[in-house]
């Protein structure tokens, strides 16, 4: 990540955290209809700030260590490492299909809210749809 992008991301995170606290502590913008919004903003803000700050710190730390930086680049591009990561993702996807399925059945058996079950089904179908899309795309490309 570029230095500017990392700093922008960290700043955006801080802004989100500040906005969250502002909504929580003041009544300038009443959020009675969305009581979880301030906490959501703080949570997302912390995540975004951590990601940006982490990228910036790692960039600064590696600035004076070009050898380590080069080794990290080699490890990231290494074809065996890439293959391992892709195989792990494939296995995780296979597991996710069963886990999502089991979760949907459990929710249905528990008589959970129909909206929750339908949202889960939509997410499940979306993931399967993305998988089919890329299968067709790669089939044409390769």
């Amino acid at each position, binding site marked *: 990540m570029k230095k500017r992008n990392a700093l922008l991301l960290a700043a955006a995170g801080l802004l989100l955290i500040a906005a969250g606290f502002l909504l929580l502590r003041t009544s300038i913008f009443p959020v009675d209809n969305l009581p979880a919004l301030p906490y959501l903003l703080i949570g997302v803000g912390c995540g975004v700030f951590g990601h940006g700050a982490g990228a910036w710190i790692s960039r600064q730390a590696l600035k004076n260590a070009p050898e380590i930086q080069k080794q990290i680049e*080699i*490890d990231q*591009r*290494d*074809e*065996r*490492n890439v293959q391992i990561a892709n195989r792990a993702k494939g296995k995780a996807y296979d597991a996710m299909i069963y886990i999502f399925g089991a979760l949907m059945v459990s929710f249905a058996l528990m008589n959970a809210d129909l909206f929750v079950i339908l949202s889960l089904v939509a997410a499940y179908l979306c993931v399967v749809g993305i998988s089919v899309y890329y299968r067709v795309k790669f089939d044409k490309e390769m």
Partner: protein
Amino acid sequence: MKNRLEALRKARGIKQEELAAALEVSRQTIGSLENGRYNPSILLAFKIARYFDVSIEDVFIDEEESK
């Protein structure tokens, strides 16, 4: 697929780390290649052959053909 990578490397007196750096791969990849646990891409196979100045067939052994 079997290969003669370890023999070629030792004949040149170079370490796994040095070969990995020259081929721009991780040291673990060299170790896995030497143990026969990992088959390289055609690009890496060419790179290895070029590095040792031999043909790909001199590095990698086609087990089907050698039967």
